[in-house]
């Protein structure tokens, strides 16, 4: 078989993978083609394993890869000339695996203001921006108003303010980390350089151990009215993300979904649509079960540098004991456990739901996250 056929097949296969959400790069395609030259093409399993090693880059991609592989690389029958079987293209649109949502390009640009631009701007403007930025406090009325009371147009404005506030907080955090003059370890390298011509060590240079960044794990309730608050919290924390070592995000209603990957590098609006997509309306909120799922699958994310934030109103239709057990488990392993309940912003609210009452003993910080002011207060709790 001509090499070109094989290369063409690899390119088409990569296209199929991309359509199903695997971000295969050009280099990987080239490598895949090269790899085939070093594999036994009559051994389907070997081709599978070889291409998988090259084209997959995380374990979650393996099931998709497997489905695509099976759809694309038809199994060669014994009497078939093997190679022809291998390079057979899928009958054009052939037996494709279940479609995975692919975002359309149209309509993304304009909507993409928020997340996209924060990421790009973060380094760029942090130095140059004058200190007298129009402060959020100029708009006090807006900062203390509950998110749920804004009109659709106002929400855009609030989203912008949220980002602004987060940026200012992020800058403050970075100033605080400047190395101190008096304390810290002696930096031998710089000390030595500075004293080179003297032959004696007179002027000690010091350095501080690089400050370890705090990591965040967010567990956002996206059932019913919580959805809106979850969005603002996410927007706020993602704008702050340079301050954190890492932000892992999960949503839950009746079951847990990890959305970290969806949030990365996507336009903000699209992200919010995704959040709404994962919501299942079927039956209430099962916080305890969702947290159990988190502990089982993602418990390894927790350590003494990790703050866990749960955003929920505490209406648990599941077993309250489960909730308590799972919270205790998180509490033991994480640095801090924070529960945000937007209803707390309402003066007449008392945390009397069974779920909330069961949760209270395990919390380090219990607050509202219903307006900008409360988000600002939250930032204070996010330092270890």
């Amino acid at each position, binding site marked *: 078989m001509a090499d070109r056929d094989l290369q063409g097949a690899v390119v088409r296969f990569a296209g199929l993978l991309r359509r199903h959400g695997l*971000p295969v*790069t050009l*280099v*990987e395609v080239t*490598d895949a083609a*090269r*790899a085939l030259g*070093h*594999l*036994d093409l009559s*051994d389907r*399993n*070997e081709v599978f*394993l*070889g291409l*998988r*090693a*090259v084209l*997959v*880059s*995380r*374990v979650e991609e*393996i099931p998709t890869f497997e489905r695509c592989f099976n759809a694309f690389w038809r199994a060669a029958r014994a009497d078939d000339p093997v190679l022809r079987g291998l390079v057979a293209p899928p009958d054009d649109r052939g037996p494709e695996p279940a479609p995975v949502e692919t975002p359309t390009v149209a309509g993304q640009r304009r909507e993409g203001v928020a997340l996209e631009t924060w990421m790009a701007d973060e380094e760029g403007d942090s130095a140059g921006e004058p200190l007298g930025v129009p402060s959020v406090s100029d708009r006090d009325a807006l900062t203390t108003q509950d998110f749920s009371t804004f009109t659709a147009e106002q929400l855009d404005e609030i989203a912008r303010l949220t980002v602004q506030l987060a940026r200012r907080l992020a800058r403050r955090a970075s100033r605080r980390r400047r190395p101190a003059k008096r304390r810290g370890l002696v930096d*031998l*390298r710089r000390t*030595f350089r500075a004293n*080179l*011509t003297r*032959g004696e*060590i007179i002027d000690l240079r010091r350095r501080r*151990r*690089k400050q*370890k*960044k705090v*990591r965040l794990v967010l567990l956002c309730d996206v059932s019913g009215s919580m959805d809106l608050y979850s969005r603002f919290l996410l927007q706020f924390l993602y704008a702050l993300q340079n301050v954190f*070592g*890492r932000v*892992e995000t999960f949503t839950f209603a009746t079951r847990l979904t990890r959305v*970290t990957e969806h949030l990365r590098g996507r336009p903000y609006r699209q992200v919010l649509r995704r959040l709404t997509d994962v919501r299942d309306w079927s039956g209430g909120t099962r916080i305890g079960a969702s947290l159990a799922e988190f*502990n*089982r699958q993602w*418990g*390894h*994310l927790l*350590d003494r*540098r990790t703050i866990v934030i749960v955003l929920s109103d505490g209406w648990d239709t599941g077993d309250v004991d489960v909730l308590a057990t799972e919270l205790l*488990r998180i509490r033991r392993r994480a640095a801090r456990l924070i529960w945000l309940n937007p209803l707390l912003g309402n003066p007449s609210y008392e945390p009397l739901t069974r779920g909330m009452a069961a949760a209270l003993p395990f919390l380090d910080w219990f607050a509202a996250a219903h307006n900008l002011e409360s988000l600002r207060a939250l930032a204070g709790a996010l330092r270890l």
Partner: protein
Amino acid sequence: MRKEIQRIQELMEAADYVTDAPVATSVHLATILRKPLLIEGHAGVGKTEVAKVMARMLGATLIRLQCYEGLDAAMALYEWNYQKQLLHIKLEEGSGRPTEQKEAAIFSEPFLLKRPLLQAITQETSPVLLVDEIDRSDEEFEAFLLEIFSEWQITIPEIGTIKAAHPPHVILTSNRNRELSDALRRRCLYLWVDYPSFEKEVRIVERKVPGVNARLAREIARFMESLRAVRLSKVPGVAETLDWARALTALHADHLDAELVAETLGCVLKDADDVKRFRAEVASAGIGKFIPVEG
């Protein structure tokens, strides 16, 4: 199967590493394509072992860079031997040599402490570089590694640029305590190592625990398989299996029974909640779920 891959499997088995097709294929492609191989999997499934065996297989030096939180470029690349430099200056004090000459002397190779990455690019033949537990380092270090991997050259201001004549074979391992960046992932070949299948685990036990009873080995593997299906917070890996098999062999056990399991459970379960969960499981389903009935 390609004969090179078969050979890798044989060499690995000869080096006491029980392997399978995915591992051998990945190692084969990593050496052919000269790409770093990223190995992910749960703790204790033998990820690090792959690098060691690969080094032995290629007859190459193994250089290990153990990652930890706060690891920075200086600690991974090189440092100047300050004590030695100071001493040298003192010794040279009365020599009357010009400053430039003194400076050139103390910033030369004899005063350089090579850390793993610099070692890896200054070898006579391609070594195997093991970047162990990359997920423990931070994002900045990961970006720095990527830079090194793309050029295989390091610039030391006082000496100049050193370029690797023989770029190393690179193996990275991760326990997924932190998600690695896409940039790094896409640069590497990828291998996910899962818990071993029943057959593989039997072979591992028989290979690694000399004198183990054949029936015991099978029962242990069966037990571990059932145990991993229970929802545990700390799922035991192969390391635990081997600890346990060694302990049981030392006790001259030739099969498992409920009493023996209860006495030695600490080898396998390291979390109080897990022990409770196991007991509850035994109470409801019976020990027969874990230990096959006689006959």
